């Protein structure tokens, strides 16, 4: 499979979950294990253009696929992507545990819909749970990234 643009291979038992392969075999520990029950979205990775909870898929099922994890979302020159910059500028995180999943999920959301409305953003990240922020600043961070991708200046909605 390809992970963040690089070809990788490994030999695993069929029962190895994709998230364990990514974290333990590939040592890419940015993808987090939260609830382990398909609810929280912390383990979200991008597989062939789909946001997937990597705790609910076997590594063998990802054979031959193209995966993006949080380690692969920065710009090619190493600078922060629009989404990473948005999370930084808008304080879209507190403890940071949900952030990799949030950013990887929002990455696919903005690919599918580069100008989502606020309800569309909230629906779009409804499979990701954040226990700190109350989501307000995460939504703003995604709006910031959307504005930047579309080349317009981000203006916060009046409170």
């Amino acid at each position: 499979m390809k992970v963040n643009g690089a070809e990788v291979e490994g030999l695993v038992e069929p029962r190895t979950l994709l998230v364990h392969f990514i974290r333990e075999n590939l040592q890419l520990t940015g993808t987090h294990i939260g609830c382990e029950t398909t609810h929280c979205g912390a383990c979200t990775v991008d597989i062939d253009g789909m946001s997937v909870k990597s705790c609910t898929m076997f590594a063998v099922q990802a054979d031959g696929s193209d995966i993006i994890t949080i380690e692969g979302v920065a710009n090619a020159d190493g600078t922060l992507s629009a989404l990473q910059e948005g999370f930084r500028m808008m304080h879209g995180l507190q403890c940071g545990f949900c952030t990799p999943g949030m950013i990887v999920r929002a990455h696919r959301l903005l690919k599918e819909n580069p100008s989502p409305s606020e309800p569309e953003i909230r629906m779009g990240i409804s499979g990701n749970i954040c226990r700190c922020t109350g989501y307000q600043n995460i939504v703003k961070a995604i709006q910031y990234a959307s504005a930047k991708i579309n080349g317009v200046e981000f203006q916060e909605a009046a409170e």
Partner: protein
Amino acid sequence: MIPGSFSYHRPASVADALKLLSDLGEDARPLAGGHSLVPMMKLRLATPAHLVDLHGIAALKGISRNGNNLVIGAMTTQHELLASDEVAKAMPILHEAALLIADPQVRYRGTIGGNVANGDPGNDMPALMMTLGASYHLEGAGGTRDVAAADFYQGAYFTALEPGEILTSVSVPVPAVGHGYAYEKLKRKVGDYATAAAAVVLTMSGGKVATCSIGLTNVHETPLLAADAAKAVIGTSLDAATLKIAAAAASAIMAPAADARGPVEYRKHVGGIMVTRALQRAAAKAK
């Protein structure tokens, strides 16, 4: 949480999958989207010795029109249903209900075939398929057969699907032009199964209900068709008294479990409210 050991198989055709299931016997389970089975395996509540992953079978994907039916391949995901213009135009209730299933990540993986074949009373598609008069195409080593959704469900996780058979597609009659529809689902949070849900498809003529079908989710060990409730609204303008009769007729056939979603009486009560709301919204949409 790590599942027990199993052997993984990824056949490239339905014939190969059926041969595997037949050779491996009852220790083998077909794997669709995996968002019911994999969590059960992680809890070790399911311990299949062999998984037959259906993702390698291209023939199980896709949505096509066959006469007045939409034929949906079993491995078509909820995300693909939501992305389909044909579904949105011909069968908007399917789009509406798919959007209420779980969350975006789960919808990229979860399939219509898995949703209808698993027999989980909490799944949304079974009652909807019954409401729409759909049928399921089942393929086994001994041949193929079609079973009406209304005849498929026998109990919680018990269905007409025989060991060794695979549900390969669902065939759904396209409702009449100008029909009204609504899927009303009460749930505690995004991703939850329904506390109670009701599907309504109806047609109106001269301000009165001409045809009506009502399905119920998660208020019984199987999905239900509320035939008496549907009959009660035919020929009426859905006035307050009729709505009350319909809700009572629907509640009368409900037998939900008491669980974290509420006691039996509460779930029957809100089940009636879901029927009322779905009828009203469907009638408002009908042309």
